[in-house]
């Protein structure tokens, strides 16, 4: 996508200009909140929305004016219905029958797809004799058999129940890796995005906020929006102050508390040197609190949630919350904010008690309060 644009007749710019390259065989997930333009981008790639500016290239060929059929792409899961009187083989093959494919070629293709999907043993069975997972794989087979250059999936799991969603998510990922077909997947669910994509492109109001591997998005968000959109629980972000900085350390103030950052952490946040005496947004993920760390903050515990794998501790500190909003960055007018820490589940923590949480300064993040951009290495 080279400066790809979508502007509607009423003047609304859904996508002002998007540059994005997807490698052969890559699984790219487009994620963002409702109205961020992700489905519009997918529909432009599919040929369902007219492109009003820029270029869309598939295998270096400009396809802006081509219809959906000419682009050699497959929209997956247009329908989940399997036909009860047809065998698994017939369910996979019938679209080829419609295109009047040669019988020998059709049989070979069905055998190949069945092998890939581990359905060879059940090819002669009817859908009623299959398990839920096998039925999902047959539905996938209907799309795969077309052998497209690109799979497009628009929230394909949204109408499945929670259990089947997790199961199908894994099936799709596994299959995509086995097939190696370039895939573009749209979702509003950041867990789906993080668990499935080779890379994840985060969109907001039609603008690409960051495109990176799930680990990079999580560990090194380029801006406050990505930092707060990715991750569950969401990153704790509060207003802080850069009290002092020298070549060896930086001191940050979070409300009445002070945190000294030195060593490797100091190098990671070297850009803070230019912010001495100024306010910034400080971001701390829940798992950077209460584990290993060289610094600490004191909190009052409001609520404890036992998740089994972790203990979520909700507490309060005396610094206002900061969040990314459509028009920029918003600082709460309340002097206190909620902070969530993810602790070892064996720890004993009681509600209403005071608690000292260790802080892993290597995993702290800082953002400019005006632009929301990450402040990192100089």
């Amino acid at each position, binding site marked *: 996508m080279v400066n790809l644009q979508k502007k509607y007749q009423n003047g609304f710019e859904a996508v002002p200009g998007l540059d994005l390259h997807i490698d052969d065989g890559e699984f790219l997930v487009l994620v963002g909140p409702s109205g961020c333009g992700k489905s519009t981008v997918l529909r432009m790639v599919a040929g369902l929305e007219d492109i009003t500016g820029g270029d869309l290239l598939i295998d270096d060929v400009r396809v802006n004016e081509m219809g959906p059929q000419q682009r050699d792409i497959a929209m997956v899961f247009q329908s989940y219905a399997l*036909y009860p009187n047809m065998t698994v083989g017939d369910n996979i093959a019938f679209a080829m029958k419609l295109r009047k494919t040669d019988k020998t070629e059709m049989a070979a293709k069905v055998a190949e797809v069945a092998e890939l999907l581990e359905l060879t043993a059940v090819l002669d069975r009817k859908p009623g004799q299959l398990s839920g997972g096998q039925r999902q794989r047959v539905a996938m087979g209907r799309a795969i058999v077309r052998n497209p250059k690109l799979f497009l999936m628009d929230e394909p799991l949204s109408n499945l*129940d929670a259990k089947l969603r997790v199961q199908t998510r894994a099936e799709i990922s596994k299959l995509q890796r086995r097939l190696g077909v370039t895939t573009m997947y749209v979702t509003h669910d950041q867990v789906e995005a993080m668990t499935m994509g080779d890379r994840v492109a985060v969109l907001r109001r039609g603008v690409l906020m960051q495109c990176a591997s799930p680990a990079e998005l999580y560990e090194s968000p380029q801006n406050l929006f990505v930092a707060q959109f990715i991750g569950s629980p969401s990153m704790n972000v509060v207003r802080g102050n850069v009290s002092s900085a020298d070549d060896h350390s930086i001191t940050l103030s979070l409300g009445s508390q002070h945190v000294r950052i030195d060593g490797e952490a100091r190098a990671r946040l070297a850009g803070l040197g230019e912010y001495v005496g100024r306010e910034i947004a400080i971001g701390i993920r829940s798992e950077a609190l209460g584990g290993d760390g060289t610094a600490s903050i004191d909190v009052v515990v409001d609520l404890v949630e036992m998740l089994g794998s972790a203990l979520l501790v909700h507490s309060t500190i005396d610094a206002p919350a900061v969040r990314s909003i459509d028009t920029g960055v918003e600082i709460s007018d309340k002097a206190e904010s909620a902070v969530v820490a993810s602790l070892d589940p064996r720890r004993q923590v009681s509600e209403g008690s005071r608690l000292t949480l260790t802080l892993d300064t290597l995993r702290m993040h800082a953002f400019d309060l005006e632009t929301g951009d990450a402040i990192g290495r100089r």
Partner: protein
Amino acid sequence: MRLQLAHPTDHASVVHWPLDEPLDDWSLPGMHRVFGLHRHVVRLLETADVTYVVKELPDDLAEREWRLLRALAEAGLPTAEVVGVVTGRDDQADGLLITRHLDYSLPYRSLLSGRGLRIPYLGERLLDALSGLLVRLHLAGFYWGDCSLSNTLFRRDASALSAYIIDVETGEHHDTLSDGQRRLDLMIATENVAGDLLDLQMGGLLADGIDPVETALAIETTYRNLWDALTGIDEFNADETFRVDQRLRRLHDLGFDVSELELVSAEGGTRLRLVPRVVEHGFHAQRLRALTGLSAGENQARRLLNDIGRFRAVLEKRSGKKVVEAVAAARWLDERFEHAIAAIPPALAAKLEPAELYHQVLEHRWYISERAGTDVGIDETVASYVRDVLAHAPEEQIVRPAT
């Protein structure tokens, strides 16, 4: 739990249903399973006054479908009447969507597996109805995303069928559709219909004479022909303005009305370009309703209007003077239509809608008159139709699966 009802006074009984329980566990009197392929639990519920279809699906999809079905109805498109939606049920991940059963509708499985439902040229009729529905949706900016026979119900419409969209889970409403959206919708429709028909064939349930692949592939041609007839731009010489009237008549014949005509001069004023803005289907049905108050399908209405025309000609010949159309229609309703319907025993009359019954009486009259070599009177025709046809016809008001 939250229940939203569209017309609470008409559907007050809904609040007494066990809305908090899984649909599969309901055991109300009059509950049945529903024909066809379903991704969700769907049940038919017959009450004393109304028959409902209840579907269980995730809250967000139920809300979305509720909104879309209401938008379809507001746009005057043929769909099932949406009654209510239930969301946020205790301990239930899914909500409920409640629609009113479309009486006298025929699911494709019962239609095509031949239950004594005689409809000539069935494959073509089905195709015309489905393509016509898709064109109407597209003209109104609706993208279906899963057009199939399973997601459609059909109603007899004189010798043709009319199609109703009943499942819009994948639908989207836009101001207008791009060519790409229309093409993809058509591609999905073709593939789904082929699947539906092949499945029936493999189950030994498809009536003879219908080729699944050829029937499905023909949807594209039928769709394109209708789309071009409705939206195509005509160009003609400046002195051929009669072509405007010609085009309007052609659109009316197809059952569509035109909200706006744009005439643009071209080539220095020697040529005119006509751009129609087709909005409404149901040209004949609306005329019939205005003249007689009768509700009918488009083809039934065309048929009944022709009969009114013939009746008017007889009146004029008898009196030797012009008869106003509204007067002729009022007398036709009383002396012909109501008279014929009243002569049918009530238990049998419920098998079909009144407009369809009258159409079939007219068909039967033509058939027995030709066989007798003379015009057969209406009373004799009705008696013969009831005895030889209607008494043996299946019940169609509500088609239930065999138990």
